[in-house]
C-alpha cells in the first residue's frame, strides 16, 4: 500500500490510475476525494494540466467534458477499435437483391424494365444502394421519350462475387429444371 503521495509525480500517478480505470468522467470533486479532500482545486487543475502534457505524444488524451475529465483514445485509433466490435452484418432487402438480379441477368435495363419484371415501382433508394456499392452503373440512355438510363452491372460487381464474367452466372435453364425436380 502506497502512503499519501508526497510529490507531484505521485499525485499525478494517483490521478492517472483513477482516470484510466474510471468508466465515467471524474469531476474535480471526485478527484479531491482521491486525496481525502486535502488538495486545493487549483493544485488539482495544475496537476491535470501537467498530466495532459505528459500524455501529449501518446495513445490517449486527457480531455475535459461536461461532467469532468477523462482519458480517451486519440481519434486515429478509433478505426482499429471499431474492428473489435463489428456491427452486425447488414443484409440487403429483397427489393435490392431482386433488382440486382434483374440488372445482372437482363442488362442493360431501364428502371421501367425492372418495374415491369418485378411488377412494382423501383424505390430510388434501391438503385442508390446498388450504385453506391459500385455494383451497378448507368451505361447509356435508351432513345425513347424521357431517355431513361440504362443500368448494367460493373466489373467491381463481378469481382465481389468472384466471377470472371456474367456467363458464369447460373443459366436460367438450371432453375427451370430444378423447378421440375421440386415438382416431382
Amino acid at each position, binding site marked *: 500500500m502506497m502512503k499519501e503521495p508526497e510529490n507531484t509525480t505521485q499525485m499525478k500517478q494517483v490521478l492517472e*490510475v483513477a482516470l*484510466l*480505470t*474510471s*468508466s465515467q*468522467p471524474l469531476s474535480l470533486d471526485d478527484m479531491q476525494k482521491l486525496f481525502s479532500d486535502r488538495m486545493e482545486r487549483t493544485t488539482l487543475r495544475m496537476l491535470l494540466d501537467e498530466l495532459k502534457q505528459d500524455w501529449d505524444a501518446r495513445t*490517449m488524451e486527457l480531455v475535459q467534458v461536461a461532467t469532468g475529465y*477523462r*482519458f*480517451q*483514445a486519440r*481519434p486515429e*485509433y*478509433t*478505426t482499429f*477499435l*471499431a474492428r473489435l*466490435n463489428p*456491427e452486425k*452484418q*447488414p*443484409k*440487403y432487402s*429483397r427489393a435490392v*437483391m*431482386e433488382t*440486382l*438480379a*434483374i440488372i*445482372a*441477368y*437482363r*442488362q*442493360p435495363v431501364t428502371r421501367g424494365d425492372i418495374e415491369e*419484371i*418485378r*411488377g412494382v415501382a423501383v424505390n430510388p433508394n434501391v438503385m442508390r444502394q446498388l450504385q453506391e*456499392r459500385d455494383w451497378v452503373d448507368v*451505361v*447509356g*440512355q*435508351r*432513345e*425513347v421519350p424521357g431517355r431513361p438510363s*440504362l443500368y*448494367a*452491372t460493373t466489373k467491381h460487381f463481378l469481382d465481389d*462475387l468472384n*466471377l470472371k*464474367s*456474367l*456467363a458464369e*452466372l*447460373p*443459366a*436460367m*435453364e438450371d*432453375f*427451370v429444371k430444378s*423447378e421440375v425436380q421440386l415438382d416431382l
Partner: protein
Amino acid sequence: MIETPLSAKIKGEAFTQLPQDLYIPPDALEVYLEAFEGPLDLLLYLIRKHNLDILDIPMADLTRQYMEYVEKMHAIKLELAGDYLLMSAMLIEIKSRMLLPKPAEIESEDDPRAALVRRLMEYEAIKLAAQRIDEMPKVGGDIAVASAYYQHISDIKPPEVSLDDLTEAWRNVLKRASQYKHHKIGKAELSVREHMSIILRRLKTDHILEFSQLFDVVQDGIPKLVVCFLAVLELAREGLLRMTQQAPFSPIYVQLNSRE
C-alpha cells in the same frame, strides 16, 4: 468479511464469543443458532471450541453438547431445521455403535465415526476456502481494470452477397412473374447482354469507335467475336447505337444513338 457466529449481535450489542457455560439468553440463542450454517457448522464449532481431536472425537461429549443446543432450540420453539434433528439421530447412532464390542481384525476401517469425521473435515476445508475466496481481491472491489473512453464509430461493412443469394433473388423474380418460357436466358445470351453493357460503356468514354475496334481479332476466340457481333446487332436493334458508313468499303463508325 464473512459473518461468523462470533460476531452475532443481540439487541445491538455485539457478543464476541459464546458464553462459557451453556446458558444462553433465550432471545440470543436464536441469533447464535441462525449464525450457524447448519449442523456441521455447529459441530465444528463445538469441536474447535473445546479443542477436541477431530480424528478421535469423544462422541459422548460431543453428542451431549450438541443435544443441549438442540434442546434449547426446541425449548424456545425455534423452528428446528430438519437437518439439525437428522444430525442428532446420526450422532446417537454413532455413539451407540461405538458401545458395541467390535471384532479386532476390522478395527480401523470400521470406526463408526469415520464418515462423520470425513464430512466434518471436508466441510471445514470448504469453509476456509470460502473465506479465502472472499478475501481475494476482485474486480469491482480491490481490482480496478482499465476502462478509458473511446469514440465508438460504426464500422458497418456492406452486406455480403453470394452467388447463391443473387440466383435465389433472380429465381424469385422469375417465379413470381411465371415467365419462364419467355425469359429463358442461357449462358450464350447472358454473354451477349454482358457485351452489350461493355460496348455501351466503351462508347460512353470514346463516343465514336470504328466498328473493327470493337473486335480484338487477335485476342478473342471465335465464340467471343460472335457474341460481340450479336451484342452490336442487339444494341442496334434496340436502337441504342447508331452505325454510319460514308461510302461503301469505307470504315463503319459506331456511336451511341443520342439525339444531340
